[in-house]
């Protein structure tokens, strides 16, 4: 196969040449630096790492970056991922040497600035969600789920309630929910959706019982719908002695409009890389703080950030809160990410946050309306939607053979990142479209037009759609061979010749 097409890059290893590495960055060690180390503990030969000059290295990465699509490149309506603009001041903030250079085991008195920021952020998130306390430790949404469900487990156990072995999860939930339940030692009971997209109350009632530890609800759901029967649901959960967990992945729909704690949710997680615009980083890092109501505070992971009566801040000491589920990671949290979230919240204030959600929901409904009017795709649930909505290419597929996957690939040619596709699994040929509040009206209009144009192409020139993308750096990939004969690391195709260099 050819190594490079337009802008494609050889690997770092192919750029390497003996002696080509960048100049000396640090002082040379004395010749005997390692002589005190037993030979048995040392490497026999140096690792075959690439030697690349800095200019080539920079071009390598800059050219690679240009093969990528980011929010900074263009519209990224990836449903349930909240790909909103990532403010540059937040990048500046996280890199301030006072934040970036602070060692996590530095004594509390040398970390007062970071501790104060974390303490404020805990309170802000508690206020936004109407929860009684928040831990900032979890490193991601799924990590927050695990933390929250372990807190649920500890709560029931502390009450001597050992029979609760099941977690109820709607079938439209993110895959992380059932995977989390398994990791925390629970059995997942799947609850089907009702015709209107909400939780099927009868199926839910039938599954709920003395074995139920918790229900995990994503609200608004992954169908982009606010859960209409939320009050009844939570009442039933509590009547059964179980707890209500809210997956906060879609919180960007509801800031200042709905606070989970006020509705009776007992536990929730935030995805700060969605709602509070910390960047997604090509897959991470994010952060997944967890909020709980008062009865669950004793079980939160350790250490928490505390404020002393004299106004100074400190980390909880080991063993200070004996009922804690313990540690869920090293240190206190992904602080560099949390600094960005704090800055986002402060830049908005309460009215700005509410306006962000209002604009996100307005934009989603507007775009949804454009697609309903266009008629080429089904829009299965009656409006209004929350911050995202479902469209389906099922009819288009039946009429033309063009699948949602093909539509998505053709969107790339039109200059857009495709929406989330084939999720949730409960909708045939699904597209989950989330425009966010940071896209201009003309972008929304043009995107709707592009989708409708692709539908026309599907009828008139289906091959053009079926073989898309045509303008991306690469065409569709051979994923089957990648999985069947995995090549997960570089190896030189021809072994180097033996003998002297």
């Amino acid at each position, binding site marked *: 196969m050819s190594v490079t097409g337009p802008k494609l890059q050889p690997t770092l290893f192919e750029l390497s040449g003996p002696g080509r590495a960048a100049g000396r960055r640090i*002082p040379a060690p004395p010749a005997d*630096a390692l002589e005190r180390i*037993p030979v048995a503990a040392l490497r026999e030969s140096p690792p075959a790492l690439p030697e690349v000059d800095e200019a080539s290295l920079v071009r390598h990465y800059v050219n690679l970056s240009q093969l990528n699509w980011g*929010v900074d490149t263009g519209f990224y309506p990836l449903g349930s991922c909240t790909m909103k603009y990532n403010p540059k001041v937040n990048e500046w903030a996280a890199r301030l040497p006072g934040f970036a250079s602070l060692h996590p085991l530095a004594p509390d008195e040398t970390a007062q600035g970071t501790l104060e920021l974390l303490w404020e952020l805990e309170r802000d998130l508690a206020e936004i969600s109407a929860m009684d306390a928040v831990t900032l430790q979890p490193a991601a949404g799924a990590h927050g789920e695990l933390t929250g469900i372990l807190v649920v487990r500890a709560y029931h156990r502390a009450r001597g309630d050992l029979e609760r072995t099941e977690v109820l999860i709607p079938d439209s939930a993110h895959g992380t929910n059932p995977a989390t339940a398994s990791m925390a030692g629970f059995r997942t009971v799947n609850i089907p959706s009702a015709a209107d997209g909400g939780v099927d109350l009868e199926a839910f009632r039938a599954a709920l019982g003395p074995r139920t530890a918790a229900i995990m609800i994503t609200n608004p759901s992954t169908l982009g719908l606010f859960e209409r029967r939320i009050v009844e649901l939570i009442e039933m959960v509590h009547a059964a002695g179980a707890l209500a967990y809210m997956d906060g992945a879609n919180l960007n729909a509801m800031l200042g409009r709905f606070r989970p704690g006020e509705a009776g949710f007992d536990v929730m997680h935030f995805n700060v890389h969605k709602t509070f615009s910390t960047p997604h980083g090509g897959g991470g890092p994010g952060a997944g703080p967890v909020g709980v109501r008062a009865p669950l505070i004793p079980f939160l992971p350790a250490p928490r950030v505390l404020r002393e009566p004299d106004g100074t801040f400190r980390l909880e000491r080991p063993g200070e809160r004996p009922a804690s589920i313990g540690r869920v990671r090293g240190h206190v949290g*992904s602080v560099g990410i949390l600094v960005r979230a704090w800055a986002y919240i402060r830049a908005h204030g309460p009215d700005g946050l509410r306006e962000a959600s209002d604009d996100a929901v307005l934009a989603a409904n507007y775009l949804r309306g454009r697609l309903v009017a266009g008629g080429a795709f089904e829009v299965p649930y009656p409006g209004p939607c929350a911050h995202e909505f479902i469209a389906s290419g099922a009819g288009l597929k039946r009429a033309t053979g063009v699948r949602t996957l093909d539509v998505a690939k053709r969107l790339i040619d039109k200059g857009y990142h495709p929406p989330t596709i084939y999720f949730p699994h409960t909708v045939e040929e699904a597209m989950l479209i989330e425009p966010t509040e*940071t896209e*201009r009206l003309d972008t929304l209009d043009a995107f709707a037009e592009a989708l409708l144009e692709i539908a026309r192409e599907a009828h008139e020139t289906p091959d053009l759609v079926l073989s898309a993308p045509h303008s991306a750096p690469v065409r569709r990939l051979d994923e089957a*061979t990648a999985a069947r004969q*995995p090549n997960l690391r*570089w190896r030189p195709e021809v072994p180097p010749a033996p003998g002297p260099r």
Partner: protein
Amino acid sequence: MVYGPHTPDDRSRMLAALGIGSVDELFDVIPASVRARPMALPAAMTELDLMARLRSLAGHNRVDLASFLGAGVYRHHLPPVVDQILLRGEFYTAYTPYQPEISQGTLQTIYEYQSLLAELTGLDVVSASHYDGATATAEAALMTCRATHRERVLVSRGVHPQARQTLETYFAGANLAFDEVPLVVDGPAAGTTDLAALQRLLEDTARPVAGVVAAQPNVLGLLEPMDEVGRLAHAAGALFVAAVEPVSLAVLAPPAAYGADIAAGEGQPLGIPPQYGGPYLGILACRDSLVRQIPGRLVGMTSDADGRRAYVMTMRAREQDIRREKAASNICTNQALCALAAAVYVAALGPGGLRDVAATSAARASELAVALADAGAPRLHPGAYLNEFAVRVPDAQAVHRRLLHRGILAGIPLAQLEPGDASLADGLLVCATECTTAEEIELFAWALRDELGAAPGATGAAGGEGTR
């Protein structure tokens, strides 16, 4: 709206298109009884005020002290090229590369990261990243249980306590058991994993062991007899997990060389700032035969429809969005940008540069050991170390506090890291890196000597050089 583009006119047009008078109508679906009360948050700040407050908060942290803090997080020279690359918006504002045709940048950088870590560890399969060293270690231990269908893991007390505590939390959730392997208390092997105790724990045939976890170097900075630990583990049918520090792998034997089946570790030393705890990089690598047990994303090389080399996320049947409750882990968001930092860092240094970082750190540590011993604080253990070691200081916590007031972060009191271990109560864990200066070492030694009231050389008999 702070960062959004909508003008009042835009909003009016959208409302008109929807045939509604107010955005409030879009929220009518929320039952009246659970609509939000106003949020009591501080008012919006201008960018100018926000930056001033952030500068002020950052200024309240003390990052100007002479620091000898380590314990898994190390202050290394950060080549500016690393952060310049991380600031490419195409990298840091992208999502997980689910659409490979427009994600080749992220995908190739992850493939290269996997390849670089495969070179360092000697293990062929490297996950695209985990949250941090502690969670990667816990996931490695869970892997051994899945692979062996056994339910008990042995963890050396030489593994970082935060990793052990995280593993304990994960194992409680999964209803799995783990036991700690003690460290040798005295003699030439003091501070390293007690092999006799390990042997006894492995002999409990009623509770067969899935995996043995040991760290190289261990949390006290000491080099462990990893080949022996691995041999004992394998003899009992258990897998062997090495918890490693990646910079050290430029000079120390790679995990594959001493028989490790899995390696886990904290990737922070590879070009990631300390940031008071994260975001960091969880390194997780394994032998080929365990590839179906490894959690997290994997990127593979393949080709596109025109035969061009290209990259894609692969073997996804292990993952939560496909397997749901049967997935290998619930991990979704990972630390891709931190993996990119690590790859750029390793490539920017090259093999010689990375070796220099490890060797210069070791040389500075030798100087530190001599200086502290001379000041009255000999090493606590006689064994070999790389760039970190414990010293004996009477009333260590009080001395540590007093040194702080002199502008010195005198490492970490072991009583704080390992409370309840009497043999470590008088210990300070200190480290040096290539960033540690001769002046800092001199200042530390001078102040310590002053605090201890010891004459130069009076108690340095135990020596700072350790065994050869």
